[in-house]
């Protein structure tokens, strides 16, 4: 017979964080549509455009040397922005965030767990895309720390924007908008189409987008072997501050 005699208490915060991160990651990896977005699309684009001459690439080296940095940027956007926005939007809609709010799990722990889940997924994406790119003859250059800084700031910028969308729009609107933004930024953010192909005025606007800063920054390091791309890091930092601050201000839990 179950004994229900009260013995209340919160678990240690480290245990909660670990459990929540593991659960969030399992939920993401179990979701077919998310895997399409985070794994299948970047992989297919990488293989297709590296082997078939359909997009005009830019800069030194093989086609894959131009494409691999762009698709790493796309991977970050797909997980930190599109995937996170859609998942969080539906968690809000189905009362998951509300219910978790009544448990001992602090909000910052929930958000940290979400970030942890995004970083774990990105690590898997980067490993997979890098392996495929290397097999296609990719020869990356540059400082791994500069690459890591770009990926982390890009993640922060896209997470802020994704959570802002998930926390303010209806779940269906988030689903539609996040996918639309994904496609638009895939085409117009320097991922597979070089920004040099756009007219000058349009180009100078597009260069301010977070996806452009991330793909351009990764490309200047990995393809051209440049040092720290400060201007791209600056653009990403500005988006990160704006996005996270707006998300913190406007996010509604129910």
């Amino acid at each position: 017979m179950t004994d229900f005699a009260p013995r209340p208490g919160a678990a240690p915060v480290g245990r909660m964080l670990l459990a929540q991160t593991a659960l969030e990651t399992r939920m993401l990896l179990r979701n077919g549509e998310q895997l399409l977005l985070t794994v299948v699309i970047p992989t297919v684009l990488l293989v297709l455009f590296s082997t078939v001459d359909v997009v005009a690439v830019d800069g030194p080296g093989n086609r894959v040397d131009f494409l691999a940095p762009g698709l790493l940027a796309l991977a970050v956007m797909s997980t930190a922005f599109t995937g996170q926005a859609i998942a969080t939007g539906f968690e809000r809609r189905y009362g998951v965030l509300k219910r978790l709010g009544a448990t001992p799990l602090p909000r910052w722990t929930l958000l940290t767990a979400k970030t942890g889940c995004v970083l774990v997924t990105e690590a898997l994406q980067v490993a997979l895309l890098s392996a495929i790119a290397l097999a296609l003859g990719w020869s990356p250059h540059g400082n791994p720390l500069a690459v890591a800084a770009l990926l982390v700031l890009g993640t922060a910028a896209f997470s802020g924007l994704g959570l802002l969308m998930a926390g303010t729009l209806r779940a269906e609107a988030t689903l539609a908008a996040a996918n639309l933004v994904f496609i638009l930024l895939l085409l117009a953010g320097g991922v597979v189409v070089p920004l040099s192909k756009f007219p000058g005025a349009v180009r100078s606007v597009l260069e301010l987008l977070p996806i452009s800063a991330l793909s351009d920054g990764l490309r200047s390091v990995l393809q051209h072997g440049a040092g720290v791309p400060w201007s791209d890091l600056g653009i990403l930092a500005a988006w990160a501050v704006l996005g996270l601050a707006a998300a913190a201000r406007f996010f509604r839990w129910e």
Partner: protein
Amino acid sequence: MHADPAVEVTGLVKRYGSKTAVDGLDLTIARGTVTAVLGPNGAGKTTTVETCEGYRRPDAGTVRVLGLDPVRHAAELRPRIGVMLQSGGVYAGARAVEMLKHTAKLYADPLDVPSLVERLGLDSCGRTTYRRLSGGQQQRLALAMAVVGRPELVFLDEPTAGLDPQARRATWDLIADLRRDGVTVVLTTHHMDEAEHLADDVAIVDRGRVIAHGTVDALRGTDSTLRFDGPAGLDLGELRKVLPDGAAVTEPTPGSYRVEAALDASLLAAVTGWCAGAGVMPDKLAVQRRSLEDVFLDLTGRELR
């Protein structure tokens, strides 16, 4: 047993835009009791409970739960309460037992998950994802999640809505066991029999206020109804003469009679004696105390809202 109450709500007001959901509500709930909150849809039950859970900030009045302010002392309060929402609260892709195990991990000293799963009959659907569970299974999972952390106080918002009789019985048994082990239970329900069966106290809420609060017995009062069938059109004026003042006699449908009064043996004898004198056989004679449903409908009205 604590002297201070589990829940103390004083003058609670909560508005959504121009609509006042809760309008000066007072409610005190003693520790270790089961309290059923009844009320028509839109009466303010869920808003009141959700304010106690810390989800909403009162526009006026004070709310204390286990002596704490649910908004300001949320971090201190949350480990001590269990919450069952009316619906949802689980990742669509999470499996039933997986979600329960996860919830248990958020508490210091949770209940044994496998025995709770067995007790609520969730073992057969343990690997089914939440979106594929039946409504009843989703309800039972939500109930399990509310109690798994060994709370002192649980809030259950319509815990048996949509359950089949077996699942409903299992939920009642579990609530009775919570009470036995000293857990305070606050539940909302539309089922009068549920309140009669489970609750030490019943609070009836209407238009944002508590309009009656007490034990089921106290609310039902001592008034009873005596019913019998006979030939249509008996002279009720004659019958009234042999009854004490304050007794009401009606013929709601032809040939069907109702006597409402503080009923005792002598009143029963008076009615049957009058029938014998009039040469009437009182068919289907029955004495009924007012049910909680009668009390509820008398207080909140019979019209649809």
